[in-house]
């Protein structure tokens, strides 16, 4: 029943194309589809969590030729997070939106989920493009100058990125004649070294644009600043998380070499520092949060790169960081609708989110930082530890300023909006208390 992951992609895609027919009920239909998706993702996750991985081939062609979905507990978790937050986010903003928005929203969700659960590198590219195109349109949907500028920046960089991804895929295919990730991983050693590195560089650059790593993230501040709150929230948990997960798979499964680990580690650290420093001086809340997102993505990348060294703690760290960042940033972006907080709910949403981001227990962010430190210590990365500490303090400084500034009269908002915000932030607490992520990290993962 819950072992057909393809439905996670198919349902939102099909619904998205049905919506233009029933314009008036677009939001409702979309809401139903996302709710179904969320339910299905939860079911599938619990199924995989207890029964192990699922492989699904599409249309009867077996890998390496056919399209192939491979889902372990980790990708199921990512799919779960994406769909869950997508649902909550849609609860907050869905009703006010028109059918076009709902359609694009569904496409973005389908694409992000697809990136996570696919086992085929070209499929991944296609899903990237679906996500990206939907995101461009969603950002531009606000139709003011800033939104258009953000969308254009994203589009230009996204298009370059897609070209690079495609080149990377082409290079791999030229050597190995396969597109299946696990097939590639098995035969990566037989590749010509130069082409291997070139293809890795191309893929990293291409996906890195989506994953907001420095210096490929020029679009990020503009896009987040330009987009409406709901869209910014969506961007913070769906495409970026899917992309960072794609990079992680690339690093851990396809190119598990020391050189790639080092590159990812240092890029992660640089991204972290630059993002946090750039956020430090921001006056615009959304732009500050965008830079902060960049920093967090750097941190997650550091965690994943350490995980590629086979450190169990690092994998846990990355999971906790992803969850913490998704929960906190999405709620903070929703909160950024007004300069001030929305009453009690808004106040505590903001506080919980910020505390999770700066790593206070028992919130998810704390475990992220804790395990990250343990694994960095295992590798004796003194400088990395110090730099992360430094970035953490800078982050604390601007979030403290943010918290102080948002004290004041309540902003106007509906109960639904507030509840959604609070629900998102509450996942930082829930995942911080439950041993779920801890256990996932010790399951057999990544394998083909």
């Amino acid at each position: 029943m819950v072992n057909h992951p393809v439905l996670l992609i198919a349902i939102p895609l099909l619904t998205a194309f049905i919506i233009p027919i029933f314009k008036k009920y677009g939001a409702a239909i979309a809401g139903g589809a996302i709710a179904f998706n969320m339910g299905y993702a939860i079911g599938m996750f619990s199924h995989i969590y207890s029964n192990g991985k699922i492989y699904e081939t599409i249309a009867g062609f077996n890998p390496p030729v056919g399209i192939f979905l491979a889902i372990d507990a980790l990708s199921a978790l990512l799919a779960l997070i994406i769909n869950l937050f997508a649902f909550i986010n849609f609860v907050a903003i869905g009703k006010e939106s028109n059918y076009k928005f709902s359609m694009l929203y569904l496409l973005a969700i389908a694409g992000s989920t697809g990136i996570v659960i696919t086992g085929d590198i070209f499929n991944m590219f296609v899903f990237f493009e679906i996500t990206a195109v939907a995101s461009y349109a969603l950002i531009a949907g606000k139709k003011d100058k800033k939104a258009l500028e953000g969308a254009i920046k994203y589009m230009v960089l996204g298009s370059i990125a897609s070209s690079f991804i495609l080149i990377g895929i082409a290079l791999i295919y030229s050597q190995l004649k396969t597109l299946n990730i696990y097939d590639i991983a098995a035969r990566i050693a037989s590749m010509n070294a130069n082409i291997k590195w070139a293809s890795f560089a191309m893929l990293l650059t291409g996906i890195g644009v989506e994953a907001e790593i420095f210096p490929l993230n020029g679009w990020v501040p503009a896009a987040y600043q330009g987009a409406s709150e709901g869209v910014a929230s969506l961007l913070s948990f769906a495409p970026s998380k899917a992309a960072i997960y794609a990079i992680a798979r690339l690093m851990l499964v396809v190119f598990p070499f020391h050189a790639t680990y080092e590159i990812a580690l240092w890029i992660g650290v640089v991204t972290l520092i630059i993002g946090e420093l750039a956020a430090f001086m921001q006056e615009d809340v959304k732009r500050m949060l965008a830079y902060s997102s960049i920093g967090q993505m750097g941190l997650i990348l550091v965690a994943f790169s350490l995980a590629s060294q086979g450190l169990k703690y690092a994998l846990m760290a990355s999971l906790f960081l992803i969850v913490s960042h998704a929960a906190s940033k999405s709620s903070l972006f929703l909160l950024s609708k007004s300069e001030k907080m929305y009453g009690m709910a808004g106040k505590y949403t903001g506080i919980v989110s910020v505390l999770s981001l700066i790593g206070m227990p028992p919130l998810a962010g704390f475990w992220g930082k804790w395990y990250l430190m343990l694994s960095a210590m295992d590798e004796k990365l003194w400088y990395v530890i110090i730099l992360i500490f430094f970035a953490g303090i800078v982050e604390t400084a601007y979030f403290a300023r943010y918290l102080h500034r948002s004290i004041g009269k309540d902003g106007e908002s509906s109960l639904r909006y507030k509840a959604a915000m609070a629900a998102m932030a509450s996942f930082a607490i829930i995942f911080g208390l439950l041993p779920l992520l801890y256990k996932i990290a010790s399951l057999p993962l990544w394998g083909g």
Partner: protein
Amino acid sequence: MLDIIFAELIVAAIITFFVREKLAAIIAFFMSLLPLLALLDWASNYGFAIINLGIESHMKIYLAGVTLHLAITPLSWFFALMILPLFPVIMLFSYSFFKENDGFFALMLLSLLATFGILLSRDMLSLFLFWEMMSWSSFLLVYRSKDRNAIMSYLIFSVFAAFAILFGIIILWHENSSLLLSDILNISGKPGFIAIASLITGFAVKAVIMPLHAWAPFVYSKCDESFVAFLAGGLSKLGYYGMFLFLFSLKGVDILQSYMTNVSWNYLLAVFGALSAFFATLIAILQDDLRKLLAYSSIGQLGYIAIGFGIGTPLAITGALFQAFNHAFFKAILFLTAGIVAYRTGKWKISELGGLAYKMPFTFMAALFAIFALAAIPITSGFAAKWLIYEAAIQQKYVFIAPIMLIAGVGAFLYSFRILYGVFLGENRHDNVEEAPKSMIAALFILVMPLMIFVVFPGYMLDLMKPALQAAGMESIAHTKFAIETSLAKYNSIAVLITLMVAMIPAFIIYKARKHRVTSFEDNYLAGEPYELHKPSMHAANNFYKPLKKVVLPYLEPGATHYFEKIYNGIKCASNAVRRVYTGYVQDYAIYVVLFLLFIVGWLIWI
């Protein structure tokens, strides 16, 4: 039973969050008594059988996949005895203190939970976890103040402290491959030194040792006094608890004494303690805001504990723990008094206050007693504590530290009198002020009691800390109920007290021999002239220590805060430089992408 206490605190926190403030105060008061019950029950472990409920002395908590080990130790028992009683008292005090609840009691209960957790934790993860919990629950209480400097400085310094502690912890974890405190046997070499130094730095933030004190004046002077009473009285002691734990219980002091040099690095701690005692006292003397004065006085008094730990002999540590205990109580009293004053008059500036002693005699009496303890007048327990530290410094021949802290002790008289004169004595400026509500007075006098007991019986205090010292492998110093004896001298509290009582007799005879009548000072001083005419010149408390200020102030500026601001501005500059990367031109971003690609390819292929 122990797990019930933890669960009960969480539930109570949730309930008090939603109910009205009076009811919340009552619930919080009774709920915060339960941990004390556990403490009394555990007292039988250390030879003070009081009650026997059979509360288990250790437990495990399963959280997010890890196991937290909790157990009571002699050290944590002693510190709990000093910190936990503050909570019910503060709840009692706050019964009529707040206009709106707004989560105060819930957060205080969470702080209590975190404090309890810190004290009970037997592995470094739970120590850190509860420590951070403490940080955020107290941060949220600071957040109520809505003051920019308080919020920012507290959060930033808390996180800095947390990172320093975390750094130390992970190094120790890596060296010993275990998080359990009982497994930490190997603190040696460079990693051990770095770990201990880093831990001390982290704890020093909460222990408010200069120059890491910069947050304290802001926070202490802007938050609710009933919370600050805990912050100054209780939270700062947790910093010293952490120091004691890693320095003496786990023998981290050995690596400090033997690493690379002949001079013990531990001495540095004493020096910083002495400097904070000295400078904070001088700054406190010059303050006009009552809460700021108390804040700096706190920093100064806490400095003595740091000196005690820095000297590191059993004598010094005994004195430091004694001082910590006293400080917890008298500083709580003083901040609560400040709260009462603000509650009744709405003012904090000493120059705007005056003459409250006759209006609120009970408040004044409690404050007077606390001030005597603070100034270490020999009829209070404050003296015994400082005396032990002085003795230790002389014993070790610390000729730099000893005069500095002695003169800081004299400085304490100056600001003590500033509080007494400016707030309670001098010209009467408030005609319509009543004595504080009964619950507040009760809270004050509950806090006075332990100070009273240890006035007469300083030996009891040494008995209380004996298990903690023995657990750290230290001999308790020779003492009886009344007297403490060191290799240098002896202090007999009962001799002082009895002699004072006897010496009171002639004084009392003189007092009673002739009658007197009470006259308002206006009648005397103004000789019938209208009061309004003289009003501007009446109050001497305005800019009280002006001559001293003129001499001293140039040497106190620019102060530590200035340097932290410089660091902040430095980061601002860095931030400004970094964000120029995001030029806003999409073409530039495209160039970055290409350069990045080339860089990666270059790295991979040619390097």
